[in-house]
């Protein structure tokens, strides 16, 4: 995997030393909070409801076992023994003390991790397909490009004071697992007629207050043109993006207000100039990065152990059905480890679990781990013959929940249990839903269904693109939950539609249950997924199931 060079190393070390001094000056009173706040945010330190929170970037979601063990150490020594993986491929520690944070950052720097650019109006941590480098459907591993973007954007002078934060997501496969259409820029690898790989460039997607599906500004961009093209987009945004109103400052608003054709014309004009001045990313840099992401040396010996274990053990067979995805090497599988046990907190892993995952990666997984935006952990390269042993180890650690992509594989943001911006809680909602569907024992029958929950309009829980989305609000001093249906975060991205008035916490789970029951009653057959059925049927039957006539009159 990619290793820091001396420059990166010195850069991160300097930042830690600088921040240590800033924290000392804040504590001794020589810096006020007004002075200190932007500095701490630049280093990933937020103030939450009950404590500070440290957000650490996991660039393109890739970790090795050493890094995972260090996260475990931080969780144990400076937190309450766990960490929370987020939809942005970050890990958040919910309980650090201010005076310990420089020490934590220094421990992270030891394993080439940091919290830089996890906040502020800069280019944030580039997110990538969590199956990158492993997926059978992949054209090319997108991570060398993601790493190139990281190096290009880190402390890029022109892009430190953008009108607003800026998020880039990238996938090397036509099947979009990185929600690229909900990012400021989404890059989706495609082939042109000559069969060469390049990028479809999508601009102006985003969730939050004004959710929008990104629009394609370029159907095919040769890989070599990527940096000048992105600089062109950012230049157009920097010059014309609105700075007068925080809620209108994201590039999605610029694209929406200016119109796609005009944006395209401006970007292409800027690109022509940039391209002329651009001497190309240094070839040795590009090849060094590519070498760092070279696939591991796969062991192609096959054995019958995998098939035999499935025949012998129905629980293992279920696990394989949901949690093992097709690898580009037929002797291998991609193992998704669910951080969504029934009644648990989505995305949380204990220090002990992190160590188990690190051990498994080291022993069976070519030392690679991934964090998905769906808040799960991936072992991307496991020999099929080893999957039964991996499964047993996961089971002992409470990590073998076989529910990837099913109703209990819920995304939930921290919500008002932690987040200072929240308008309602999200975690207890996720817990209640997963418990209820566990009681009903219908999960497998229901099939693929993505529920996503956010605790406020900022939509960190991606509720707009959930097949069922839930948004927690404060309605006259009471937690209230709005439901959206039909959202989709893949290459067929769609923003979900609101059903109508929201539900109190007590009425929410029955409403979700009624929606799912309606689907089961109306689907053509078991092969028709919830999303397909919703697209065929429209919202009406689902609304009828959850609102009485009185409610509907009120909603009208």
């Amino acid at each position: 995997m990619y290793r820091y060079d001396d420059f990166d190393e010195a850069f991160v070390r300097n930042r830690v030393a600088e921040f240590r001094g800033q924290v000392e000056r804040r504590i001794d009173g020589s810096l006020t909070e007004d002075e200190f706040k932007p500095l701490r945010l630049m280093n990933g330190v937020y103030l939450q409801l009950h404590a500070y929170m440290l957000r650490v970037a996991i660039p393109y979601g890739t970790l090795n076992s050493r890094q995972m063990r260090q996260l475990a150490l931080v969780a144990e020594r400076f937190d309450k023994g766990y960490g929370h993986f987020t939809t942005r491929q970050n890990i958040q520690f919910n309980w650090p003390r201010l005076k310990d944070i420089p020490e934590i950052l220094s421990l992270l720097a030891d394993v080439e991790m940091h919290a830089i650019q996890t906040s502020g109006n800069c280019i944030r941590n580039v997110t990538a397909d969590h199956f990158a480098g492993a997926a059978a459907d992949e054209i090319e591993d997108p991570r060398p490009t993601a790493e190139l973007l990281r190096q290009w954007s880190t402390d890029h002078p022109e892009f430190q004071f953008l009108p607003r934060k800026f998020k880039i997501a990238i996938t090397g496969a036509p099947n979009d697992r990185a929600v690229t259409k909900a990012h400021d820029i989404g890059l989706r690898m495609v082939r042109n007629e000559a069969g060469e790989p390049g990028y479809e460039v999508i601009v102006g997607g985003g969730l939050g207050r004004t959710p929008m599906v990104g629009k394609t500004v370029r159907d095919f961009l040769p890989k070599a043109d990527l940096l000048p093209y992105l600089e062109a987009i950012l230049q157009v945004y920097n010059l014309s993006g609105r700075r007068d109103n925080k809620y209108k400052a994201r590039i999605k608003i610029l694209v929406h207000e200016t119109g796609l054709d005009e944006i395209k014309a401006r970007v292409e004009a800027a690109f022509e100039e940039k391209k002329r001045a651009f001497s190309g990313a240094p070839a040795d840099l590009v090849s060094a990065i590519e070498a760092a992401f070279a696939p591991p040396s796969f062991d192609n010996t096959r054995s019958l152990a995998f098939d035999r274990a499935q025949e012998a053990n129905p629980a293992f067979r279920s696990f394989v059905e949901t949690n093992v995805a097709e690898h580009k090497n037929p002797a291998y599988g991609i193992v998704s480890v669910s951080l969504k046990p029934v009644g648990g907190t989505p995305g949380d892993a204990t220090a002990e679990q992190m160590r188990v995952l690190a051990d498994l990666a080291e022993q069976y997984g070519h030392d690679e781990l991934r964090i998905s935006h769906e808040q799960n952990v991936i072992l991307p390269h496991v020999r099929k013959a080893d999957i039964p042993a991996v499964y047993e180890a996961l089971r002992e650690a409470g990590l073998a929940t076989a529910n990837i992509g099913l109703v209990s594989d819920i995304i939930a943001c921290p919500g008002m249990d932690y987040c200072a911006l929240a308008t309602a809680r999200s975690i207890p909602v996720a817990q209640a839903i997963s418990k209820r569907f566990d009681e009903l024992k219908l999960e497998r029958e229901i099939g693929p269904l993505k529920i996503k929950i956010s605790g406020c309009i900022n939509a960190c829980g991606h509720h707009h693109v959930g097949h069922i989305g839930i948004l927690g609000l404060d309605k006259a001093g009471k937690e209230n939950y709005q439901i959206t249906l039909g959202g989709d975060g893949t290459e067929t991205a769609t923003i979900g539609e609101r059903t109508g008035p929201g539900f109190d916490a007590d009425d929410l789970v029955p409403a979700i249950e009624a929606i799912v029951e309606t689907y089961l009653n109306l689907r053509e057959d078991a092969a028709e997924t919830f999303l397909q059925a919703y697209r065929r049927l429209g919202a009406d039957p689902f609304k009828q199931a959850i609102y009485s006539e009185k409610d509907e009159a009120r909603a009208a």
Partner: protein
Amino acid sequence: MAREYRPRIVTANDLIEGDAVYFTASHGWSREHGEAVVAFSADAADGLLEAAAKQQDRIVGVYLAEVEMGPDHRPQPVHFREAFRTRGPSNYFHGKQAQA
């Protein structure tokens, strides 16, 4: 008719620990919501907030929060957000609820 003033307290987070703290009558900070000094008028609230905000070296993120007076004459949170801050998260037994 002027709307009746709803009593308020001053709250913040501890500078180092980051947990919720409440401004007291002696202009110190308590980790107990019930020990907060209560302002019964807008002027009194502004005065408390100003005094509290001077203690930058002890706290962060100071603001006024509405309260109700309980039967024991101690203030109680009105909004659920403030109630959560007196307890801690609901998914784990962490925070204030674990320290009580």
